Every structure is written in structure tokens, then in C-alpha cells.
């Protein structure tokens, strides 16, 4: 398995239609005011954000859901990480477990979203060779570009009867064009070439719920296990 690094982590809880999240959730969980608080009228979304575990946490409340998003602090390049997988996700997971065991409202669906990035590879061809060990169909033709594989392979939950776990993953080889502009011209080169896996492991929306407190915790663990399996073994069709 590649050495995966977590670029961003997200935990989402979808609320039962007759429940809502306390507006003081940030203070309740973090213990101090958020650094920034924004209301987006178009989506009725409240965003509270601030420093958290050497990165930035955003808690977004909407009528239908709550998202906890953890991302690294900005750096000189976009190639910043929360840490290696799975350790880099621990702060967010611990925060979510505290919320689930405390003041969480009725939840009918849960999701764990991770963007994983591998160590740098020599070039795109080398990236596709390594990707081919994780997914089917990675190109072997020299010069191939723009390969993306997105697939959901659901399975039954081992913790909750009648619950399905969606295992959605999106695979690609990515990099960045570095554009260095001087006074007279621009020079570009592809840098930081890496494998990229976007995971969205979640419970099926058809499950009526709501989850009990213990159930929600065990479901979160199950989502993490499923994400770990995908990171280790890839997605074979």
C-alpha cells in the first residue's frame, strides 16, 4: 500500500427532519469562540471555523446536516497534510465521538470523507503503474493522462441490521503545474506528482434511522475500517 497522507478529513452527520444542532456547538466542543463565523443565506449554512490540532476546523450547520471539516494550515504549497493515514484523522474522530456521546441530535445518516495523497512519484507514468496495483484499468500506454476512476461498491453493515455502507472512491494521478512568472515570461513544470484517492464512505440514505448513541459510535468505527481497507487494498472491480 502506498504511504498515504491525509489532505482533508470530513465527518458528516445527516439530521433527522425533526432535529437540529445547537448553535453553540463550537463553544461546547472547543471551549472558546470560533475565529470566524459566517452565515451563507443561499444555503442557510452557518460556518464556524478556527485553529484545531495544527490545522483548521470548520463546523458547518445546515438544516439537513452538520459537517466537521479538518484541513491543514496553509503553507507555501498546496501539498500540506494533516498527517499520515489513519493517524492524521484521529483529532477529528475524537472530536466527533465526543459530540456523538454528548449533545448530538437525532442522526439518520453518517459519512466519512477523506482525501488521501501518496508520496511523490517520479512522473505520471510511474503514478499510473502504482495506481494499477490498486485499481483496475489504470492506463499503461505512454503519454496517457486524465485517468479518473470513480466507483461505489456498497456492502451490508456488520453492526446495524438493514444498513448498507456505501464505499465511494475516486482515483487519479495528480500534480501541479508550477508557474513561475518573471517580468518577461512564465515558465511551467509539473511538480508534486502523486496518487490521489478521494474516499466517501457513508451509510445509505434509505435507512430510516435514527441511530442510537452507541450505534452512531460503532457506525463511525465501521466507516473508518472500510476507509482503511480501501486505502490498503484499493478498489478492484
Amino acid at each position, binding site marked *: 500500500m502506498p504511504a498515504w497522507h491525509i489532505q482533508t478529513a470530513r465527518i*458528516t452527520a*445527516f439530521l*433527522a*427532519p*425533526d432535529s437540529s444542532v445547537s448553535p453553540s456547538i463550537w463553544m461546547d466542543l472547543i471551549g472558546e469562540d470560533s475565529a470566524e463565523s459566517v452565515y451563507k443565506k*443561499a*444555503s*442557510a449554512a452557518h460556518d464556524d471555523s478556527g485553529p484545531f490540532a495544527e490545522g483548521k476546523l470548520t463546523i*458547518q450547520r*445546515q*438544516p*439537513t*446536516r452538520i*459537517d466537521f471539516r479538518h484541513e491543514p494550515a*496553509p503553507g*507555501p*504549497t*498546496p501539498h500540506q497534510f494533516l498527517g499520515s493515514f489513519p493517524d492524521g484523522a484521529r483529532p477529528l474522530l475524537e472530536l466527533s465521538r465526543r459530540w456523538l456521546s454528548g449533545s448530538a441530535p437525532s442522526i*439518520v*445518516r453518517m*459519512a466519512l*470523507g477523506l482525501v488521501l495523497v501518496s508520496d511523490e512519484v517520479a512522473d505520471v507514468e510511474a503514478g499510473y503503474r502504482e495506481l494499477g496495483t490498486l485499481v483496475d484499468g489504470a492506463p499503461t500506454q505512454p503519454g496517457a*493522462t*486524465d485517468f479518473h476512476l*470513480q466507483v*461505489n461498491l*456498497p456492502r451490508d453493515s456488520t453492526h446495524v441490521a438493514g444498513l448498507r455502507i*456505501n464505499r*465511494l472512491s475516486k482515483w487519479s494521478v*495528480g*500534480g*501541479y*503545474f*508550477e*508557474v*513561475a*512568472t*518573471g*517580468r*518577461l*515570461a*512564465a*515558465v*511551467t513544470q*509539473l*511538480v*508534486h506528482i502523486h496518487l490521489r484517492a478521494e474516499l*466517501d464512505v*457513508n451509510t*445509505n*440514505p*434509505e435507512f*430510516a434511522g435514527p441511530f442510537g448513541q452507541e450505534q452512531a459510535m460503532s457506525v463511525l468505527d465501521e466507516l473508518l475500517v472500510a476507509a482503511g481497507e480501501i486505502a490498503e487494498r484499493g478498489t478492484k472491480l
Partner: protein
Amino acid sequence: MADSSTLTVPEIDSPDVRNETSRLLSTAILWHLVSAATEGARRCFLEPTSATSLTAPAADSSTASPEVSEEFRADLQRLVKAAREQPIEDGMSNPVTKRLQTILARHRSAMVPALVGVLESRQTPPIVAAELLKELGRIRDRVSHPHRLWVLAYALRAASPLTRDGAGLGLARLGDRDALTYLRAAIQREPLDEIREDLRLVADELAALDDDGVPGSRDL
């Protein structure tokens, strides 16, 4: 960090520079703008793609927070406006019955936040909200079913009794026993006798459905 004094910089008017600049300008790309700058140089990180337009495939199982597009918002606003301008009568078609299903089919992923926005908007009269909710229940689409159930159950808490009644009728049409928990809670808190009785009738109807959604026999 790039230092412009160490770069080999071609003449600005050379074919290579023109071609490279033209390629950058003509290709639609994703930008990651980097704040770092050195004297005389700035770096930008762009994800590489040969695409000239970016359309990501929608994934039904994705939980990414959906954006309500301007187009979707405008479609719903036009629908509400058209519905406001026509009488809404039982059994008669109106802009909602004619157009809602098509609009939702085009924007399925963002359906819930968009509909919540419409229901909570002051521009949406209760009679139009009620008609929207009734129509939501009438639509037959497996993929959007849980989302429509959520919106209908959510609307049981609306401030307007007409909207709450519409939500009940929508749930009756949806025919899903999973709504019973929310209906029973709504019945408990409903202050108006007439609405409470309507909701009770819907709950009785749903409770009588069997696992296949078929009304079961009842002892008279």
C-alpha cells in the same frame, strides 16, 4: 521559491512564449493560487488537465455538500412566481404539478437544501408551499425518495398550518411507513384540531400499509 534572476527566461515575443501563454489562456484549469511570492516572481499551482470544460460526474452515493446552483434556484423561483399568479384548486393542474418533477430531476443532488430554502422563503405563500409538498409525495423516483421523505417530514414543523397540512398530504401520497415516527410527533404537538385530525388520518393510512406499501385489510 523561484528567483527570477536564476531563471532562463526566453524573449517575450518568441513563438515558444506565445504558444505557452496561449495554451495557458485557452485551457480551462483549476487554480491553486499560492500566496508565496519572491522579488519579481510569483508561483501558481494548477492541477493538470487537458479538458477545456470541467464537468465532474455526479455520484448518487456521494455525501459532498451539494451546491444549489443559480440555475436551480432560478428555476424554483420562477415556479413559485408562476404558482402565485394562478389559482390552485384540488384536482386541477397548475405550474407546480406541471413542472416540479422535471426541475427536480435536473437538480437531484441539491434537492433538499433547495426545497428547504423555498419552503422557508417569504416569497413562497403557504398555499404554494402546500402544493409543492403534495406534489413531492406524488413523484415516483426511487433515488430521490429518501430526500423527498426528509423534506416532507421537515415541513411538518412549518409555521403555517396550511403548509403542515400539505406536508401530511404529501406523506400520504408518498406512502412510506418510515414517516410514521414524524407524523405521530407532529400529531402530538399540533395545536389546531382540524390539522391534527388530518394528520391522524394520514398516520392511520400509512400504518395500515403492509411491507409492500399495499393497504392491508382492517377489522371494521
